[in-house]
């Protein structure tokens, strides 16, 4: 049973998706061991995997398991659904499927049938319990781990089972506790929280003794007495207790009031002494008006204190167990009350990364909602409980936007709570969450569309009101959040024919053109244009707003447009002709070689970190005019579309490799691009992406270009940062790719080195944060195609080929990448499939490969560190220059929008890439964030450091 992986069967949920029955039919061959390779780490059904995980311990990153899993089940695909009950399944499996469906669906629809459903399910489970005990316990545990929003329904069911079957309680607790213990060892924070809250609720159904819940809380709270541990560690365990108290507070206060008060006193002391340095960097608004952006523990503690004063009376938690008082609470009840075994909290280790602190996002208060509603106050427990339910549903259903919207609208909040306002508030809270939203930004946009569709008359007005309020608060909104707001808003408008009451914003048009409101409108128009076209924007924008509409995104070819021809025009004409004729690279090079070399004074391009040119190759170095002529002509000829531009770059890729070597030359490529496309931001974004991916330009050159004087006036425009982020992300992915390869080899070596063991010193213990158990974001997934490391293309190191023996080695960069990839994976396969030769030989090969990859990783990490150093250094230079200028002009820098835009971008880089930056934090601290820099810059660094303190 354990490896049959039946949970994917009938994936459509209730069989309501019959559109692919056909392919189900064709896939009998796939009915073999399978488990969801993407999510398997949460479903510990495979015994083999179970063992694997235990062996690997908390250091084990999950992607390695995934890789192994994928290798083992290479033909398996998690998306394959099979027809329920078809294909000669055994009875056992059928039951398991049915059980799983029934248990997962329990309480999914809030209606009156729940009471009967619970009783029926209890009866069914009792009948099956002897035969399918293991399966039932397993599925119940899955429900607890995966569906937190229905936890009280499951605790009721389990309470009923405990009252009916004498052995059930202890069996169930055993599974629960072992899952919890495993989650603790692996630091699976979400699961730990869910179990602790669930166990708390079991005291309400007389399965667990209140005294043992109290003991559990005391164990968790004891972490507050630990010394030399980061605050984030203690925060997590205290948070576990706080989120559980709304469920258990009442019963604990009735039975153990003294002990409970002692516990609350300890928490109070802890909350009071916590450091709050990290708060400003996480807040969505820099102002506390109109709503304070409270620290999450502070806020929840205030809510719990209020709940305690109200004698733990709350009206929001749905507690179906009270319906079964006869069965659960009467004197004749057969329930056995159990005690929890001792649970120990694993000690702190420096390699463990704890959840980051958060702030509580609030944008509405009771004055914002219609009179018939009452929005719970900021410190009312109901506010937290409804928010928590909304968050849980969003999280559970985030893969299915339609289901997600349906589930959200089915929430039944108690008395007069304005559900739509709270849903909107939570969704924006997630979208604006710093450092990153929990899910891809696009999801929140598509969810809002579904909600509008489901409730066309009630939801859109609330959303409009929310947008108006967010707009009014733009002045103090963080730049990252304004950008997400723009990205979402343009997307939303494009789904509603760009209909918006722009006239309402007419008052702000007189503001400083760099002010947040103007910037917001300008950037929104820009994004709307990217989703539609220039004329469409002109059509929907009122005339008064025309000055904010972006220019038509046409190319500018300076060699043609100037009235008096500029130097090089005749060469440009010739080049254009040749490129149009698809001439060979040699011909182009021949023309470029005839361009006279202007004196150095004319072309001197000063970049602070321009790399020195190797003296021996000086005579082969191409000057800036030659590069400019080539790049300008090429991009001009390819200007018709992305595809045309990419094709042009691909066709002359080899020529780029000959022309472009130094960073100065790379920056010239970017400058020429900017001169052609100053009006087409999206084109620049995709072109830089392509130039980096094809290794024509290095990441560090992009960073230096962005902070160069030529781009100075663009620095407050959002697309510049889009380019920088995408560049940094490519660098990070490169490192991660090598890192994963290394981990992969490491595990292979572990397997094949039963005789020989590799020296432990060869295994870097702390390679990247990805080696930590908590980094599980899907964004971390590596794109194998993204090669930009020189070590992958030895061309760079080679002597430059002479023009006449120049061969076009690459038709297109993508092909090249693919070939590389194929070669490499073939190599990989070879190394893996060796089973025939003696073990030592295979192992030796693996060792060899290991060393190569290790070296590549070290190189990539060096590059990565260098990139961050350049970025931070240039930030400090740019900001310091500005501050000095302000001082000399006697201007208060804080009053300028410029400082806001730039300093908050610095914050953004820290936050977005905190995993990477933290690895080099000591270098940055000693080299650049030193006490001699302005405090407003240093402050950002200190707040960042506090995130893990």
């Amino acid at each position, binding site marked *: 049973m354990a490896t049959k992986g039946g*949970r*994917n069967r*009938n*994936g*459509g*949920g209730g069989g309501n998706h019959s*559109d*692919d029955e*056909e*392919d189900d039919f*064709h*896939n009998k*061959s796939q009915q073999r061991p399978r488990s969801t390779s993407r*999510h398997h780490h*949460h*479903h510990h059904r495979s015994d083999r995997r179970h063992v694997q995980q235990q062996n690997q311990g908390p250091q084990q990153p999950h992607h390695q398991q995934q890789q192994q899993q994928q290798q083992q089940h290479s*033909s398996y*695909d*998690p*998306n*394959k*659904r099979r027809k329920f009950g078809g294909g000669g399944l055994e009875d056992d499996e059928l039951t398991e499927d049915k059980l*799983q*469906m029934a248990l*997962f669906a329990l309480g999914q629809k809030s209606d009156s049938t729940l009471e009967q459903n619970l009783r029926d399910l209890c009866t069914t489970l009792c009948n099956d319990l002897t035969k399918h005990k293991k399966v039932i316990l397993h599925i119940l545990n899955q429900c607890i*781990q*995966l569906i937190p929003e229905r936890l009280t329904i499951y605790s009721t069911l389990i309470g009923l089972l405990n009252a009916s079957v004498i052995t059930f309680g202890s069996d169930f607790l055993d599974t629960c506790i072992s899952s919890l213990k495993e989650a603790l060892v692996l630091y*699976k*924070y*979400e*699961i730990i929280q869910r179990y602790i809250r669930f166990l708390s609720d079991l005291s309400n159904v007389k399965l667990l003794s209140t005294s043992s819940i109290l003991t559990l809380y005391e164990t968790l709270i004891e972490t507050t007495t630990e010394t030399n541990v980061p605050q984030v560690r203690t925060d997590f365990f205290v948070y576990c207790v706080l989120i559980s108290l709304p469920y258990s507070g009442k019963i604990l206060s009735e039975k153990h009031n003294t002990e409970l008060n002692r516990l609350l006193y300890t928490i109070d002391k802890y909350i009071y002494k916590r450091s709050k340095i990290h708060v400003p960097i996480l807040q969505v608004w820099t102002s506390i008006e109109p709503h304070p952006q409270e620290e999450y523990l502070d806020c929840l503690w205030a809510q719990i204190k209020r709940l305690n004063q109200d004698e733990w009376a709350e009206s929001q938690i749905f507690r179906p167990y009270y319906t079964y008082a006869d069965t659960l609470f009467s004197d004749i009840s057969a329930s056995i009350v159990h005690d929890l075994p001792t649970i120990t909290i694993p000690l702190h280790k420096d390699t463990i990364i704890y959840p980051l602190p958060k702030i509580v996002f609030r944008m509405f208060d009771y004055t914002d909602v219609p009179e018939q509603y009452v929005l719970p106050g900021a410190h009312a427990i109901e506010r937290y409980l409804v928010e928590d339910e909304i968050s849980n549903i969003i*999280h*559970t259903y985030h*893969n*299915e*936007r339609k289901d997600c919207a349906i589930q959200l609208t089915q929430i039944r909040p108690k008395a007069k709570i304005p559900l739509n306002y709270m849903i909107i508030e939570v969704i924006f809270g997630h979208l604006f969450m710093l450092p990153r939203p929990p*899910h*891809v930004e*696009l999801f929140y946009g*598509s969810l809002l*569309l579904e909600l509008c569709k489901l409730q066309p008359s009630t939801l859109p007005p609330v959303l409009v009101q929310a947008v108006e309020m967010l707009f009014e608060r733009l002045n103090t909104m963080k730049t990252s959040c304004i950008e997400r707001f723009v990205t979402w808003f343009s*997307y939303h408008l*494009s*789904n509603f024919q760009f209909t918006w009451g722009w006239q309402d914003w007419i008052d702000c048009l007189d503001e400083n053109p760099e002010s947040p409101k103007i910037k917001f409108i300008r950037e929104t128009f820009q994004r709307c244009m*990217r*989703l539609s076209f220039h004329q469409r924007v002109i059509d929907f924008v009122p005339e008064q707003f025309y000055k904010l509409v972006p220019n038509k995104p046409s190319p500018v070819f300076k060699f043609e447009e100037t009235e008096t021809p500029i130097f090089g025009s005749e060469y440009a004409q010739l080049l254009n002709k040749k490129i149009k004729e698809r001439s060979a690279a040699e011909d182009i090079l021949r023309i470029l070689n005839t361009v006279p070399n202007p004196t150095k004074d004319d072309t001197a391009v000063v970049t602070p970190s321009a790399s020195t040119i190797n003296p021996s190759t000086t005579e082969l170095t191409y000057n800036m005019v030659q590069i400019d002529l080539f790049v300008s002509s090429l991009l001009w000829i390819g200007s018709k579309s*992305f*595809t045309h531009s*990419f094709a042009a770059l691909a066709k002359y890729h080899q020529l780029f490799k000959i022309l472009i070597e130094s960073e100065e030359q790379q920056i010239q490529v970017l400058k020429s691009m900017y001169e052609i496309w100053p009006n087409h931001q*999206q*084109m620049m974004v*995709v072109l830089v992406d392509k130039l980096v991916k094809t290794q024509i330009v290095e990441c560090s050159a992009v960073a230096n270009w962005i902070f160069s004087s030529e781009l100075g006036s663009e620095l407050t425009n959002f697309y510049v940062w889009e380019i920088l982020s995408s560049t940094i992300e490519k660098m990070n992915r490169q490192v991660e790719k090598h890192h994963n390869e290394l981990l992969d080899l490491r595990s292979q070596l572990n397997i094949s080195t039963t005789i020989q063991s590799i020296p432990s010193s060869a295994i870097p213990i702390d390679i990247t944060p990805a080696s930590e158990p908590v980094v*599980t974001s*899907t964004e971390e997934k*590596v*794109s*194998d*195609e*993204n090669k930009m490391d020189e070590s992958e293309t030895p061309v760079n190191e080679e002597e430059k080929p002479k023009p006449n023996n120049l061969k076009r080695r690459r038709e297109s960069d*993508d092909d090249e990448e693919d070939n590389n990839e194929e070669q490499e994976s073939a190599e990989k396969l070879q190394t893996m499939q060796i089973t025939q030769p003696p073990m030592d030989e295979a192992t030796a090969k693996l060792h060899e490969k290991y060393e190569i990859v290790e070296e590549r990783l070290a190189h990539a990490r060096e590059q990565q560190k260098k990139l961050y150093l350049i970025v931070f250094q240039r930030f400090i230079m740019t900001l310091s220059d500005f501050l000095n200028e302000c001082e000399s002009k006697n201007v208060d820098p804080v009053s300028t929008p410029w400082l806001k835009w730039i300093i908050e971008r610095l914050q953004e880089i820290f936050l977005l890439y905190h995993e990477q930056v933290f690895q080099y934090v000591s270098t940055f601290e000693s080299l650049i964030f030193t006490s001699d820099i302005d405090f407003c810059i240093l402050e950002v660094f200190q707040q960042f450091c506090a995130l893990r303190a």
Partner: protein
Amino acid sequence: MSDLTIPFLFQKSVALSSYRDRQFRGNEVEQDKKLLQSTTLYVGNLSFFTTEEQIHELFSRAGDVKRIIMGLDKTTKTPCGFCFVEYYTRNDAEQAMRYINQTRLDDRIIRTDWDAGFIDGRQFGRGRSGGQVRDEYRKDYDPGRGGFGKRFNPALEMEKGGLVV
């Protein structure tokens, strides 16, 4: 947050549809296998005027786009209302299936579906008139897709009194 998901839920939006490319070279099992590992999407119901740039803007919100291949009318070599979007990773392609399918681009509800991977020649419409087959006999007037169906004669229908524009 970690990616905890109810297993039976997470497949609906990314499951295969009933459509199968009849010109696929290989049997249906091979085709399905390819579709299930694919990082390429077919995108349909586009306006003929929708550009690669617009498609890139929308689809890059789901992940890093590797390339876009515009569907072209095989006689006029102009866009004819479909394209292929290829991602670097399966996960990004799945995000597009989840969050872009059945939403709007250029005021049209677009449709995404898995594609077994682009091969040269597939960028051209397969209708006899050069465009997509679905535009051959289409009876509604769709200004975004060249008006009436190419092989549908509205004047003739009008005479019969059967057409309401």
